[in-house]
């Protein structure tokens, strides 16, 4: 009798949870269908060739395995190796290729395993982002923001062999757990972000702000856990150079590889990025994509500022698109800005009406498909 009651409650809870989240799952499924359809169209038409030979069109989802995906697969296959003066793989942080290796243990080819992994992580990221948003901006804006993130034009990267889905998930989880003062779990989420990409280390800012806000009322144990959460992301980020020091006998291998990729810091980098950006715009229109999304992200963060989103989150997300400019280029800034979570809250707050929201989702979905179809022409 009791068992039957527990079973009923479980089933009810499950049904309620599904009912609450099915819009998100639906948005995820439809947006990913668009990306997969775009990749299949590339496979069938064998065009545009862009930077690639025919090899990326051989596999049905080959386009989703391209660009940095090649490097992540290489790391999962062979480990790290610094080749001086050339682009090499220590420029890529280790968590995603590590998960790729685990996913490939199921027997799937590495590329397919990466695509499945990224898509599942993206679903998890959307679900956690929605929960985080509810606590920050309320359920209505949070839900709209989550759907807008699902169909955001640059979100095709979240279906590629790239760590962006993982980073999104870790960012959203860190934010939510910090708000709930679950400091140890927050430390783990922040560490995962910092092991996925170097910008994860910047999570120190919002966690520190959340810890500072709680400091006066917290007991010693909570203060200690909060401090640990603050230090977790930098500690995790530091583990990568330590590993490279052990494996390649060069703890600075990441910096050297970044240099070869044209990603080294320059004091006048932002100025260079602006002047070169204007020049690049005249030469090829694709430069406009990164510049446009960088400006859009900053504008939406300004809108989010008015929504009382925690200031340090806004500072962190502004840094996500500004720090890469110190290398003197806007390259890939659209992708770097994808993780700027408050920007989606800002965007969602601008479209309150049903029709306006539906129109924005439609336009964004069309751009998402277009971005997928032009994948061979320009790197994410």
């Amino acid at each position: 009798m009791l068992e039957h009651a527990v079973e009923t409650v479980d089933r009810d809870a499950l049904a309620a949870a599904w009912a609450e989240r099915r819009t998100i799952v639906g948005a995820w499924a439809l947006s990913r269908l668009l990306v997969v359809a775009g990749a299949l169209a590339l496979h069938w038409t064998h065009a545009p060739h862009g930077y690639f030979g025919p090899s990326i069109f051989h596999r049905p989802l080959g386009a989703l395995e391209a660009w940095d995906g090649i490097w992540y697969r290489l790391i999962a296959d062979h480990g790290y190796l610094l080749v001086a003066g050339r682009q090499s793989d220590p420029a890529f942080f280790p968590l995603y290729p590590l998960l790729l290796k685990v996913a490939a243990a199921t027997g799937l080819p590495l590329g397919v395993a990466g695509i499945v992994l990224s898509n599942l992580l993206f679903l998890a990221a959307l679900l956690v982002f929605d929960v985080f948003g509810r606590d920050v901006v309320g359920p209505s804006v949070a839900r709209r923001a989550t759907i807008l993130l699902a169909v955001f034009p640059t979100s095709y990267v979240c279906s590629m062999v790239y760590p962006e889905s993982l980073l999104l998930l870790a960012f959203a989880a860190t934010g939510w757990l910090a708000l709930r003062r679950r400091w140890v779990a927050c430390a783990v989420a922040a560490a995962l972000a910092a092991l996925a990409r170097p910008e994860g280390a910047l999570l120190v800012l919002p966690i520190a702000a959340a810890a500072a806000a709680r400091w006066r009322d917290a007991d010693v144990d909570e203060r200690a856990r909060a401090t640990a959460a603050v230090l977790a992301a930098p500690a995790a980020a530091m583990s990568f150079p330590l590993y490279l020091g052990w494996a390649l006998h060069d703890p600075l291998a990441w910096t050297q590889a970044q240099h070869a990729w044209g990603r080294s810091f320059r004091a006048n980098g932002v100025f260079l990025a602006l002047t070169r950006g204007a020049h690049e715009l005249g030469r090829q229109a694709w430069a406009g994509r990164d510049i446009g999304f960088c400006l859009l992200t900053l504008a939406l963060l300004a809108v989010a500022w008015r929504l009382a989103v925690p200031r340090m989150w806004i500072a962190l997300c502004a840094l996500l698109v500004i720090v890469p400019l110190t290398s003197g280029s806007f390259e890939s800034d659209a992708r770097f800005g994808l993780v700027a979570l408050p920007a989606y809250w800002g965007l969602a707050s601008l479209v309150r009406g049903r029709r306006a929201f539906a129109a924005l989702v439609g336009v964004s979905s069309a751009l998402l498909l277009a971005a997928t179809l032009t994948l061979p022409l320009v790197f994410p």
Partner: protein
Amino acid sequence: MRALGRFRFVATAAGIPLCIAALGVGLDAAAFDRPSASVSLAAGALRELAGLHAMRGSEISARRSVSSICVQGDFRHDGRITGGALVLLGDGTRLYDFGHGVRNYDGRLPTPVQRRRFQLAGCPLLLGDRLGSRLMKGVTAARPTRADGGWAYGVRVGRSSALELFVTRSTLRPLALRLPGAGWSDLEPGADRVAIAEVRRAFGLARPEGRRRA
């Protein structure tokens, strides 16, 4: 009591991040293969090549020996500053490559012999490019041997590589290059200012940093 509280604070606040860092290193070490000795050696040889901008060579063939000097850098070419390699052979032949294959300075198509000599000139960055692109994907073999009268390693990269670079055992600096079926050349890293100026003059680049067409 206060000391115990302080200890608990420090143990938690520092202990968790330290555990995270240790776990990060441990997971990476468990998950990823370390480069083998051969791959490390080849990467070391490439690191040496990456630091060079000029190479002197001396082709060794049954018929006659032809010396060469390769100078690499940014030169003005077709109205733009472009990275490339200039090779001046001992017989006066001037060959260059600005990323579109080997070209003859006098406008004629390079002969197969000239192409081979260009390769044997051992232009460091081109050689590094060729070996480096294969290093991460292919099989690498490094064997101890003797070259140019000294102890050396022969480094061959890639499954179908037809190229073997010989480097000194102590410093991994280039000593010789072998193209199976095409011959050998002894290599001497770097070149003095006079030699570099000579190459630049031969390509009409006498004025500082390539004012004229290479």
